[in-house]
């Protein structure tokens, strides 16, 4: 038995470009602080430094120090075990319930430390199921793990790709570790470029939201970046983030020591413009650190260091419950607007059970007015007593298909779906059973409004 949710708009139409791009309605983008201009003021993210090892060398990186380019902490910064990381996430969610995204971006490569990465994501997802997970990688070791990436419920993967041409690659990457062997020079770059596009293909073909980061190295990969954008667009990559090479001899990187300069503002802008012809460009990236905590641009990492956390007693259940409620309240579009799903047959009244609904009408409301914005079809997941409480794929899929909604209104909602909705940060509401849709949606939006105000005030 399967639930067919109307598929989301193609990710390729998504992004929040500085170079005028289409609006994006993919819920995976709308409230992601790294992708959406609206969201990065409202939602917070945390990067967990659980992946220390790296399987390639880049000439803009000195593994000894914090990576100047991704603003990653180097090996000198603290590396967390998966358990420590999950605990840290809980502590951060306690202090900042707007936390919506957990990422693993280093200090090395998420996929070069795959077992640690997997253990961390599982522990985090168990503690706070509403969180969205994302990973960053150089792409070398990704394709083989694409199925696991999907199974883990990861929504976004960022791949750093700097060239399509192995000759140029050899000037950026001195070596890679691949299939139990160190490869150098041209051979190394050939392997890397090949595996990077295998990674892109493996992920996008599985419906994963993929972002490409490129480091702009003037005089080295100028003409490569627009080509990367064009090729990425063909694969259905969502967004391209062109970042300036940050280069200084004091960083001890090969480029820094060799006097390779980074681009100036005008060059960077022009390059983003060129790439923007093919793919939405990211305009507000702050190249945050792999152990970044908090809202973008506001790094509160120090508050949650290992020492600060030691001996802290956390009520995991209470934190998870409040976190889910805040996440639901935060899903308010650009202003204070919420999407609210309604189980209705006639489109006038709330007249269907959650499990029997063949479609959900999605309304948007700011508490003042109500607008019908979408119709999402489902295959009925509950077909009688024998199916009830049956925990197959249909229910999780159904809940996931409503993940952009802050609440769902139905005549009745069973125990199992009720739990799942709550855990996904979607408030189940049955008190308006058989009522007219508009006033009920208005009332719920007003309630969400009040909830959010109260929750945020609590924190202040």
């Amino acid at each position, binding site marked *: 038995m399967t639930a067919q949710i109307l598929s989301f708009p193609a990710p390729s139409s998504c992004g929040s470009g500085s170079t005028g791009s289409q609006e994006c309605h993919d819920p995976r983008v709308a409230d992601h602080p790294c992708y959406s201009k609206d969201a990065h003021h409202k939602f917070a993210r945390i990067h967990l430094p659980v992946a220390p090892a790296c399987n390639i*060398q880049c*000439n803009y*990186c*000195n593994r*000894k120090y914090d990576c100047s380019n991704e603003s990653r902490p180097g090996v000198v910064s603290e590396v967390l075990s998966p358990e420590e990381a999950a605990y840290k996430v809980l502590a951060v969610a306690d202090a900042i319930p707007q936390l919506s995204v957990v990422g693993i971006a280093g200090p090395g490569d998420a996929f070069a*430390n795959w077992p640690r990465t997997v253990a961390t994501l599982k522990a985090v997802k168990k503690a706070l199921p509403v969180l969205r997970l994302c990973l960053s990688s150089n792409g070398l070791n990704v394709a083989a793990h694409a199925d696991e990436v999907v199974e883990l419920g990861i929504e976004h993967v960022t791949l750093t790709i700097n060239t399509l041409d192995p000759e140029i690659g050899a000037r950026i990457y*001195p070596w890679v570790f691949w299939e139990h062997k*160190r490869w150098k*020079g041209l051979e190394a770059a050939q392997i890397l470029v090949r595996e990077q596009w295998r990674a892109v293909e493996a992920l996008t073909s599985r419906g994963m939201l993929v972002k490409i980061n490129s480091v702009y190295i003037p005089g080295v990969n100028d003409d490569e970046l627009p080509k990367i954008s064009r090729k990425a667009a063909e694969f259905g990559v969502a967004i391209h983030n062109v970042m300036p090479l940050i280069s200084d001899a004091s960083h001890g990187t090969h480029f820094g*020591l060799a006097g390779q300069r980074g681009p100036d503002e005008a060059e960077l802008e022009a390059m983003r413009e060129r790439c923007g012809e093919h793919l939405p460009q990211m305009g507000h990236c702050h190249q945050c650190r792999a152990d970044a905590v908090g809202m973008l641009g506001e790094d509160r990492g120090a508050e949650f260091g290992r020492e600060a956390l030691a001996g802290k007693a956390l009520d995991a259940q209470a934190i998870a419950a409040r976190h889910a409620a805040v996440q639901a309240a935060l899903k308010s579009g650009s202003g204070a607007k919420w999407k609210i799903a309604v189980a209705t047959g006639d489109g006038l009244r709330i007249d269907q059970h959650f499990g029997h609904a063949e479609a959900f009408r999605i309304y948007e409301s700011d508490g003042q007015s109500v607008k019908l914005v979408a119709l999402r079809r489902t295959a009925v997941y509950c077909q009688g007593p024998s199916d009830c409480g049956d925990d197959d794929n249909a229910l999780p899929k159904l809940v996931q298909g409503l993940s952009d909604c802050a609440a769902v209104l139905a005549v009745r909602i069973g125990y199992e779906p009720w739990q799942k909705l709550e855990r996904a940060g979607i408030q189940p509401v049955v008190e308006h059973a058989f009522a007219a849709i508009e006033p009920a949606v208005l009332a719920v939006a007003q309630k969400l409004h009040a909830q959010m105000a109260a929750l945020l005030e609590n924190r202040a």
Partner: protein
Amino acid sequence: MAYAITDRCISCWACLTVCPNQAIAHVEGLFMIDPQHCTECAGDFPDPQCSSICPVEGAIENEWGEPVNPPGSLSSMSAR
């Protein structure tokens, strides 16, 4: 027959993730190879794994005390 880690190690963890014999230990912030478990990867891989991923020249030595990745061998290597 065993490899060893020198004080040029920058504690990047890479060797630990690839050793087929769990011969590398992370003790009080330092990485070291247990000579009782290191086989130089004989029978597992043609190339010893730790020294094939280590990003630092001179951080790993063979049983004669010679650097497996001598100066210049990782070409445009940056950690120094």
